[in-house]
């Protein structure tokens, strides 16, 4: 998928994560903030990158502010932000998640 415009998903509530995606310069640039950084930072990073990879996103600026979200939440928020950025959230949404 191609990131066509900036889009966002998620909130700053505890146990959620807020993800912003913007068009990139041919690579993935990830900026991550997390309330559980020291214990889960690397796992969160891996989850975000894997999710983008499976969605076929190869060029994006991704900003994530994590408030202790579980992996399932992180995947859902990343996926939703990507869909919104390329108008794939208007119809035929793969409810339950494109990324399993």
């Amino acid at each position, binding site marked *: 998928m191609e990131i066509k415009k900036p889009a966002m998903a998620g909130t700053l509530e505890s146990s959620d994560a807020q993800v912003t995606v913007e068009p990139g310069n041919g690579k993935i640039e990830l900026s991550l903030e997390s309330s559980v*950084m020291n*214990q889960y930072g690397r796992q969160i990073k891996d989850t975000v990158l894997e999710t983008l990879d499976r969605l076929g996103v190869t060029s994006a600026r991704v900003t994530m502010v994590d408030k202790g979200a579980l992996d399932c939440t992180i995947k859902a928020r990343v996926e939703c932000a990507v869909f919104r950025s390329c108008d794939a959230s208007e119809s035929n949404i793969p409810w339950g998640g494109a990324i399993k």
Partner: protein
Amino acid sequence: MINKVGRDIPDYLLKDGKEVYQGKNYMDGKYIQKASPKTRRYETPQESKVAESIVKALKDCGAKSGMTFSFHHHLRDGDFVVNMVMKAAIEELGLDNLTIAATSLGSAHDPIAEYIEQGKVVGIQTSGIRGKMGEVVSAGKLKTPAIIRSHGGRPRAIEGGEVHIDIAFIAAPTSDCVGNCRGIGGKSNCGSMGYAMTDAKYADHVVVITDCLVDFPNMPASVEAIDVDAVVVVDSIGNPKKIASAAARISQNPRDLMMAEDVARVIASTPYFKEGFSFQTGVGGPSLAANLFLEKYMDERNIKMGWAIGGICGPMVELLKKGKVGKVIDVQDFDLDAVNSINQTPNHFEMSASQYANPANKGAFVNKLDFVVLAALEIDTGFNVNVLTGSDGVLRGAPGGHPDTAAGSKCCIIVTPLIRGRMATVCEHVVTVTTPGDCVDVLVTDYGIAVNPLRKDLIECLDNAGIKHVTIEELKNKAYSLVGRPDDLEWEDKVVAVLEARDGTILDVVKKIKPYKI
């Protein structure tokens, strides 16, 4: 040297007879030489000890650089006194090299972080450390490692001369002109002044700071004029709204209530649950709610609680007024119901921190406790509890009376949700051991109950009562299956805080955290 809870304590800390933690009741039977303060004689009758300012009182008490000042935390997050005194000492008198020995410190004391960074405050001894102060100490900016003690460990250290207090500052809701203090009757009431009592008896000098001067004699006094050098009247000692909450409300959160009900079931299954039993509970959601369910079992079996201790709040006062508990003995008050009840409601008494929890005296109240219900930030598969450091390794909590009540009681129950956000509360190794596992008996979570294998008798009690329980490893595995296995924290070598067990041995150390890179 590796101690009994598996923590490696650097050898350089083991000097002047300091030992590593060797297990519960290790110091039993040993003798302690009590220290005595050097106090000034006031033979000429004094009309009044009121000094015009904190600076004047500091000068009169011979304040100088390098001294240790003590404070107590009954004004909790509403406290103005620590900041006010340190400002006078550092900014007006130009003192430095100071040590703060407080019963606890909170985010109300954020301004002290600045004095630590400037190197004016070089030592911190406390139970609680949070907010900015927790951050700068964790960042290694305090000259000497902070010393963290439990509420019982502190009076032990003071009485044994490990902490020598040069000047104790007593935040007094009311005082008369010679320094008889009470926690009630003023505009910033805190109720019990139990944590201040040992300080007043063992400090060389004692300065009372009050915002409500009352007629002599202010009786019954929590801190007595015989120990006081000076009284300073200020506009306000604290923000009453933050000193005591309106009323500690019992949680409506169904998860908390479910855990609280399990706690009460566990208690009711043991042989200690009988007429005259004794009890302490924390004020966290599920711990406080346990009161409610316990009352149901008490009514069912027609038994009454003999006495309750601790930090006290409304629901316990309510039980006292209903005649369901015989006596309440109180070291600190958390809400206005408790503040307004101490020494007013019959059988609601005040006690000192030493009387509450000191392991080196001849019998603290905690030693007679049947049950204590406590919370935890983390608990590991060895039943060791952490209530001091966050999952990022930064100081942001307090052992308080946790290790004392856990060690003294016959049945110590930890109640906590299995996970908080993405943090696994039940884990493989806690960040810092604040209460050793040999003092913890039962763990109640929203995903199940686990009993410490050391307590075969309690396992039998639960089995007989048909209460399902699992191993703590199963709970840990469940937690990790939900949140993932956390990475180990990475530390530098520098020790930023030493955690003393209640008996004075070293239980754990907190090191400077390494910056994290992803």
